[in-house]
């Protein structure tokens, strides 16, 4: 294992020291609970937005704390859900009287821990609603699994729901919007390499030089199938086809599109991939209204990428364009 770390046990807490040193003007860190807050939280009358999950997906979620996105992000150990104490502390701290929305990616541990926290928060009198993101089309048979995983759509959802909350909409309104974003979003990813969890010290799975893993999640877990390494053109097709077929998206639709790097793929290749994806969408008669290309929801140093599409109407696009000022996304300010 070659990593720029001091001790595998301290990776998350030491990274938070760095976040504080870098962004202390805008963010506040609760080191005990490993929660990143917007410095001006709670905002009176604004719905509080919190998310969280295992670390290792940066900039998700901590990088999306700030004006127009999240009020707080709870950082778990690497690839491990945060615990209810953390979400409970964050929920109380960001409640400005208008209630709190929990944005949860659909993983067994995350859902259970957020559920326990929501129960405890409700006992303490804070109004909480939750949205569970489950956009990964690689998981086909939801009846016989823990359901689809929450992946790339989470980024877009945090942006849109964050803008809605910032504009003063009510908790139910923001929560219902978040549910609609999730319903309109689909993602699919592939990996060229595995990744190494510092505490484990070696790659989570082995992948030969001439293979790639299709339908991966974001935790270094193996995907649905192992296929021969393909060209970017073929790989784009392998990602876009199942996404388009699933919603389905059709001629005349507009989308917010994201080509996301898993952490170890250069931006050069991501833009090359975006070009291929854009072409396929054009051929399908789909307009890309807005796009993101870069590392937005990662899996440590895994090489590979994912494609996310959110079918977008004027409301979504208006919320997308609203000002945002976070370490991970910044425009309009």
């Amino acid at each position: 294992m070659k990593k720029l770390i001091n001790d595998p046990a301290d990776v998350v807490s030491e990274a938070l020291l760095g976040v504080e040193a870098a962004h202390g003007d805008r963010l506040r860190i609760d080191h005990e609970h490993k929660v990143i807050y917007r410095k001006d939280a709670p905002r009176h009358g604004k719905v509080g937005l919190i998310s969280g999950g295992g670390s290792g997906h940066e900039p998700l979620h901590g990088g999306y704390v700030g004006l127009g996105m999240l009020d707080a992000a709870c950082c778990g150990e690497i690839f491990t859900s945060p615990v209810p104490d953390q979400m409970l502390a964050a929920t109380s701290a960001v409640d400005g009287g208008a209630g709190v929305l929990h944005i949860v990616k659909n993983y067994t541990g995350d859902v259970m821990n957020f559920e326990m926290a929501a129960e405890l928060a409700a006992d303490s009198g804070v109004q909480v609603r939750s949205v569970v993101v489950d956009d990964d089309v690689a998981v086909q048979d939801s009846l016989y699994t823990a359901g689809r995983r929450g992946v790339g759509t989470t980024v877009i959802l945090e942006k849109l729901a964050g803008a809605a909350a910032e504009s003063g909409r009510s908790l139910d309104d923001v929560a219902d919007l978040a549910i609609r974003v999730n319903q309109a979003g689909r993602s699919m990813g592939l990996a060229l390499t595995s990744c190494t969890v510092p505490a484990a010290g070696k790659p989570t799975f082995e992948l030969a030089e001439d293979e790639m893993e299709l339908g991966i999640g974001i935790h270094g877990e193996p995907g649905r199938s192992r296929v021969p390494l393909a060209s970017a053109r073929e790989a784009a097709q392998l990602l876009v086809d199942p996404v388009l077929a699933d919603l389905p998206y059709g001629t005349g639709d507009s989308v917010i599109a994201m080509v996301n790097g898993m952490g170890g793929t250069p931006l050069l290749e991501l833009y090359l991939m975006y070009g291929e994806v854009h072409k396929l969408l054009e051929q399908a008669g789909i307009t890309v209204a807005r796009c993101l290309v870069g590392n937005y929801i990662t899996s440590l140093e895994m090489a590979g990428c994912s494609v996310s599409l959110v079918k977008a109407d004027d409301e979504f696009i208006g919320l997308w364009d609203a000002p945002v000022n976070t370490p991970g996304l910044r425009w309009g300010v």
Partner: protein
Amino acid sequence: MANDVDLDRFIEWLRAFAGAIHDNAAELTELDSAIGDADHGSNMDRGMRAVVAALGAGEFDTPAALFKKVGMTLVSSVGGASGPLYGTFFLRFGGALGDGAVDAATLGDALRAGVEGIVQRGKAEAGDKTMIDAWLPALEAYDATQADGIGPALQAAAEAAAGGRDATTPLVARKGRASYLGERSAGHQDPGATSTVLLLEAAAAALG
């Protein structure tokens, strides 16, 4: 028939379980890396160390108070799915022990209450390739041998759990992260069922 279990023996059980988790942490993580996210051993080890620290720091009047502390400690230190699942198990287990002497029947009822908590939290059923596949045969074996006393009943439960654990290997996972692998999850032993066997083996050694 073995004596009733007292507070000291429960503490001995928890220490033995913490030791077994620590000794097997690498194997648990290895199993989890095949079909999950490579953290079951390290997470459980962190949680049980926190439990041992809490045992050293606190005084407990009743088994119920002890296991409440254990459950809350696990929930707040393990993370993942194992934290809520093991935490809920101990909370319900402790809650069902009551204030009186813990005989074989009471212990059996408490184990069942704990497992019902796991089922409620995780919504897994038999054959989903989870810790439930170790627990269900263990409860059955315990009930069948309960008349012989706590020691033999826990021994039988641990052996049945090991059988259940081994039987998870060919199964296709339907809950937890392993379920995302579909058919490819077959051929690997479930990490949660594996740590469950450690819990019952420690119980047989400490409480029997």
